[in-house]
């Protein structure tokens, strides 16, 4: 039982991170109907920017942990958002009226370009980071197994929940969110009522990138290592999460992220850690075969 609860905690932490990345996939899909395959790289860039920010702060002699975290968070969100905006501007907007396949290829090209760009500028070697948030609490002990909840895990879960709540509010209740939903539901009509569609799409990329940056920062803190290739696997997993939850659905992305995190944690714990990726991707295959609209996805209906 203790072991189970420990894995539950680990799975939720991981799932929170996947969920944050998955939101970017699902929002972009909702609004322009394509999978932004460069989104994993955006997350990787977010992780790098948080490392760089940390090193800069360290060099400046700042040691106050809450301040470090806040600055890391803001810097990575801000700079990564610029990358997200640029990706849309450079790789997708010129192809807005082109066939979907063209945009897809452009996305894959963007992903390779960003990976190589980071590899060239930051080097191919793994960057390691000393733990910033250490310590934790022992929840209970059973048969010599202690269930630990680290402060870092608390930080990750609470920050994710706050971001997701804020984000849902933004989409459901604010004029900006309403404009995004309008573009998602009928882009032509949105422009007729006065929505600047191009700008709304840009905003969507910026928001998705900012959330991916938070995920990147969390992973940096959680695992303490980053390299230029982490975007690929995390990206594909978050994509799986978005599909599992129902691509285009915001609560779906959050739910899908949590489920993928939990599946991975439990699979690693009870079966084999080597095959945890296989478990996650088998889910993708099964969902695509048996429930292509995902758990919370909506089937396409149109009233004439």
């Amino acid at each position, binding site marked *: 039982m203790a072991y189970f609860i420990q894995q539950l905690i680990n799975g939720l932490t991981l799932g929170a991170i996947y969920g944050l990345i998955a939101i970017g996939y699902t929002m972009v899909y909702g609004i322009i109907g394509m999978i932004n395959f460069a989104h994993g790289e955006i997350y990787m860039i977010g992780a790098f920017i948080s490392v760089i920010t940390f090193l800069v702060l360290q060099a400046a002699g700042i040691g106050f942990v809450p301040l470090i975290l806040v600055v890391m968070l803001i810097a990575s969100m801000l700079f990564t958002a610029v990358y997200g905006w640029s990706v849309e501007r450079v790789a997708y907007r010129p192809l807005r009226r082109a066939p979907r396949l063209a945009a897809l290829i452009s996305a894959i090209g963007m992903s390779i370009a960003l990976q190589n760009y980071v590899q060239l500028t930051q080097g191919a070697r793994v960057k390691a980071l000393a733990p910033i948030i250490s310590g934790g609490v022992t929840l209970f002990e059973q048969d010599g197994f202690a269930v630990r909840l680290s402060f870092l895990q608390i930080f990750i879960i609470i920050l994710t929940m706050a971001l997701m709540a804020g984000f849902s509010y933004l989409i459901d209740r604010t*004029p900006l969110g*309403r*404009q995004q*939903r*309008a573009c998602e*539901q*009928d882009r*032509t*009509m*949105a*422009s*007729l*009522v*006065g*929505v*600047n*569609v191009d700008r709304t799409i840009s905003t969507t990329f910026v928001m998705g990138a900012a959330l991916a940056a938070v995920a990147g920062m969390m992973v940096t803190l959680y695992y303490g290592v980053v390299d230029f290739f982490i975007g690929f696997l995390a990206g594909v997993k978050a994509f799986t999460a978005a599909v599992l939850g129902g691509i285009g659905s915001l609560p779906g992305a959050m739910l899908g992220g949590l489920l993928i995190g939990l599946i991975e944690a439990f699979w690693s714990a009870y079966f084999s850690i080597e095959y945890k990726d296989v478990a996650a991707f088998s889910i993708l295959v099964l969902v695509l075969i048996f429930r292509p609209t995902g758990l919370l996805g*909506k089937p396409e*209906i*149109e*009233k*004439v």
Partner: protein
Amino acid sequence: MLKIEGVHTFYGQIEALKGVDLHIGKGEIVTLIGANGAGKSTLLMTVFGNPKCRKGRIVYEGQDITGVPAHEIVRLGIAQSPEGRRIFPRMTVYENLQMGALPTDGSTFEADIREVFDLFPRLEERRNQRGGTLSGGEQQMLAIGRAMMSKPRLLLLDEPSLGLAPLVVRQIFEIIKKINEKGVTVFLVEQNAFHALKLAHRGYVMVNGSITLTGTGRELLANPEIRAAYLEGGH
């Protein structure tokens, strides 16, 4: 108020509008009638620059608006209830109306929505229902209501009677008249020529992307060609 001068619009290689000229005066109800596929809806969309016209100009209140992006047009005071109504299906009636109010500064929102609810009491009853679950008539009311929320001076209506029961059609046309009486100029595209011509001050007839006839509503209604082509036999 709106002048369309020699407008040619293409879909790829196909010329959908072949040099259309028409004008709409302030305070008028002008109707454009014609068969399915004549290019009526294309003309309304061309006013919004989507698709763009390849030749000709569109002048609104003395200003050339050819090439102005769609989302700016509504800010100039032109609103459209488009072909197929295009309600945002997964937004509530209220949210759809909020979307309509986007070009305004929001200071008169409560009064504006009151006005729309007075025109269409049905929408108030359904305010929290999703657009996609409304009946066809209710969706049409919502499409017009949404357009009214931007406080337009010129309202473009694309086939508001399409697919509606005769009783609802009559209701909608009465409301269009009321809207016009409030000082909004109306450009009404219709296949239902009888109702449209009865309501309109002036009308144009479009055939295959060109204007073939024009006159007052009464003149066109009495024209034997029009009667044969659009009025007799089921309309």
